[in-house]
């Protein structure tokens, strides 16, 4: 299975452009270890067994939640952030799923907060990691293969 960074970048740019009207571009950046972050993840099971995650700095998460709900960043609640990151992960994950072998099923999103890198799949292998700058805030899309036999 081959996932191209360009395909993933196109998906992310479409989601950000049409749902948030927030600028985003691929960027060659490193995870800033220990930074407060929010990560959303969706699982894909079936012909492929993957976890797709979207991890963004806490300030970036607040910025996109404010854009999603049309609020000032100071008025954004933790629920607004969880809802926004969950739905963005769902959209990006659903579109990436269409590039993976079918048939497969997409799980509901799970959102966690912590310090970056917030999410690592134990025993999984990374199929793709692409960095972005979302209105200047670091964000990463990761696709993990969870299948031990492939």
């Amino acid at each position, binding site marked *: 299975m081959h996932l191209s960074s360009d395909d993933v970048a196109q998906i992310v740019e*479409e*989601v950000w*452009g*049409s*749902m948030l009207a927030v600028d985003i571009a691929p960027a060659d950046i490193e995870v800033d270890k220990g930074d407060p972050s929010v990560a959303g993840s969706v699982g894909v099971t079936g012909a492929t067994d993957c976890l797709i995650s979207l991890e963004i700095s806490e300030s970036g998460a607040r910025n996109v*939640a404010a854009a*999603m*709900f049309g609020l000032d960043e100071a008025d954004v609640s933790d629920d*607004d952030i969880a*809802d*926004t990151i*969950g*739905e963005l992960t*769902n*959209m990006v*994950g*659903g*579109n990436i*799923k*269409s590039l993976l072998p*079918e*048939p497969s099923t*997409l799980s*509901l999103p799970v959102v966690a907060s912590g310090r970056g890198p917030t999410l690592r799949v134990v025993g999984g292998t990374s199929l793709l990691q692409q960095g972005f700058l979302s209105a200047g805030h670091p964000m990463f899309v990761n696709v993990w293969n969870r299948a031990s036999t492939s």
Partner: protein
Amino acid sequence: MKVVVADDSRAMRMIVVRTLRQAGYDGAEIIECEDGAEGLAKVKEVSPDLVLSDWNMPNMSGIEFITALRAEGNDVKFGFVTSEGSDAMREQAAAQGALFLIAKPFTADMFSDALKPVFG
């Protein structure tokens, strides 16, 4: 025009409603639901002109929602607004009589293209 909007994301319900208004249906009365089960109860209660539903939701998914409606003989106009639009899902939706499947991310033009043939 009464529209039931079913999506477990409050953000997405808000964007669907906003896009519906941008597509020219700004006078629509909106009834929001968090999943298919709540949507099913609301459709029976308010007899909407249209249902716009996500696919992937807790408690009752979108396809379970339309299947339950059709099993009860309810043929309310129904469209999916969902984050994935595989051929298999489109076929499943059409088999239950769904009018369209709009894949996220979407634009007001996509809503307009889907709804104009039905509501003008």
